[in-house]
């Protein structure tokens, strides 16, 4: 299990655990929930923000938020 900001570009993973207190509810409502698929589509310079595909949503979040999401790589 690794924090989301360490995911490599194009890698596919599954959300394992989220630290609810540090995440906006909006992100959770957009599908950032344990069990959902997640992949990193693009990074802005300095790896921040991150452009992600979570479940079926495409969205961008900042690195500091991504550190509170833990993912497991898909084999």
């Amino acid at each position, binding site marked *: 299990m690794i924090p989301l900001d360490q995911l490599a570009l194009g890698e596919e993973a599954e959300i394992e655990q989220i630290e609810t207190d540090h995440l906006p509810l909006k*992100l959770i409502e957009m599908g950032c929930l344990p069990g959902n698929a997640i992949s990193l589509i693009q990074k802005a310079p300095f790896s921040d*923000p991150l452009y992600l595909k979570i479940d079926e*949503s*495409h*969205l961008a979040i*900042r690195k500091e*938020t991504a550190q509170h999401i833990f993912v497991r790589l898909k084999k």
Partner: protein
Amino acid sequence: MGRSINIALLGNPNTGKTSVFNRLTGLTQKVGNYPGITVEKKEGICKLNRTTRAHIIDLPGTYSLNASSMDESVVIELLLNKNSKDFPDVAVVVTDVENLKRNLLLFTQVKDLGIPTLLVINMADQMKRKGISVDLPFLEKKLDTKIALVSTRENQGLDLLKELLLNYRQLSTQPTIDLYTIDQQYFENLKAAFPNQKLYKLWLVITQDVNFAKIDRKRVSDATDFRTQSESELKRLQQKETVKRYQFINEILKVGLFIDRDSATDLRSRLDRILIHKFWGYIIFFLILMTVFQSIFDWSSIPQDFIDTSFAALSELAKTRLPEGVFTSLLAEGIIPGLGGIIIFIPQIAFLFLFISILEETGYMSRVVFLMDRGLRRFGLSGKSVIPLISGTACAIPAVMATRNIENWKERLITILVTPFTTCSARLPVYAILIALVIPQGSFFGLNYQGLMLMFLYLVGFGMALISAWILTKTLKINSKSYFVVEMPNYKLPLLKNVGITVWEKTRTFVTEAGKIILAISILLWVLASYGPGKDFSEAEQIVTEMHLNIEDEALTTKINAYKLEHSYIGILGKAIEPVISPLGYDWKIGIALISSFAAREVFVGTLATIYSVESDAEETIKNRMASEVRVDGKPLFNIASGISLMLFYAFAMQCMSTLAIVKKETNSWKWPMVQLFGMTLLAYVVAFSTYQILA
């Protein structure tokens, strides 16, 4: 007289909700005006059949009923306020077929409030290309509602939607999920305390930090049982609720929605690869901005010149054709130039909004937010500040309103505070005339000086916005959690009708709102310049004639007029502030223009026009008239030093009542507009002072 029903349109951003609204209402819609109300409320009328009219409100786009920004709070406030005259008889949730799962989350929430709720699945035209198909009867049964499959692009499915709206009474109002399964004990207690209220509604009242007009929020949250829940526990319950809702939705979509991934084409990733590339992405953004600004100036100049000459001719016509008198003079010297000063902005504002709405409609704006976030964060702004800063080049008023989707309060406040530094279109005429006056023709490596000066002024505006944002970040002690979640929507071709309506609405609002102020000031100025106290004004002719006995008639008239102006109310006012502004290189006439500009900058040129035309009837253009103004020592009033000093004063000073009013509304306090008024104006004074002292 038939019946009328209230309809609320809801939906996630980027689902085409506004397209549905535009299709239904066309140009019958009206947008709530700034200044006056906090909320941009879009409403319109749609005839459903011969006897029934629908009053439709297009609510701001929202991802859920758990509000995280001001725009979203508006939605909840309306849905929870049964006593509002706009409370919907039926809610319509607009969804995008490609993001159905996430869009349905909002649907289940709205339905759980016990409001009859219809579902619109939009972008049906995309289904075939994306390999999507839906089992409508199944979805209708499971979601316990009626569904209209719509394509706003191809104008399909809207008749069915109207028919469903007519029969809204048949819609079920049963909740979709059972809140008791989240936390039996908690919700049972809640229900027992308020047996007459819908459970989900109570839950929202507890969790949402919004104004509930008539709901006794106090009573609910004061009940000790519910207060004991900490914020973090409440959030855990909200997360459980979200999980529940997704379980419900997933169960249904597993059967009701088919996606054939293979037939999907991938425009998004191909475009994203270039448009948000680490290097090329920025180059492309810069090129787009350049193109936008270039075309605004190039394309606008033709209609603007036309408007300018037409109003000058009209004013002349009024003067020569109408019988002489107070009314004619007011019309020709106050009202007509005043109106011209408003209308001349229309081309630029319209072009700017044309570009902004195209960039938004295509989905490109979100990519810009993504690209710029990191860089702007250094200055205490957010990627989302890009939109206000770009819109600020048209007008600070819509720009300040565009900050509403910045969730973080500190970032939003700073964006609001610095936006007025961006060069709005009202500064343009001031710059244009001063540049033409004091900056020499000629070029430097093929770039002409005058153009370079204008570009410099734009850069100075942006630069000052960034610098002051940085200072504010360091000095303002506000703790707010920094949340940043931006949806990256699919790329779309802009819908002509949407773009057209945006341009029309924004331009119209500018003309009516700013126009009122400009017109009122023009009239006030004319009155102040046409009357004065004491003998110096009323017996000006006699005094001047006695002073200059051997002088031609024409020169005498000019002298009389000048003497009158000096002793009119406005002359006295200008003279009073002259000691303060003379170190900046200005005389009392510029002083008058400065005072009137505090209402709105764009009156600068009009004011000078009024002052000079009152002073002399010579048929000279305003520019030539300004060029011939001299100081006591005979040197021209407008030279490089005073001209640049004046331009920089306009670049930094907070001279716009409407902006102050909107900032007061948006920040809900007089503190911040006052900070802007005094802070920016002081800065302007200091910069203009130093510039003049160095250059002169």
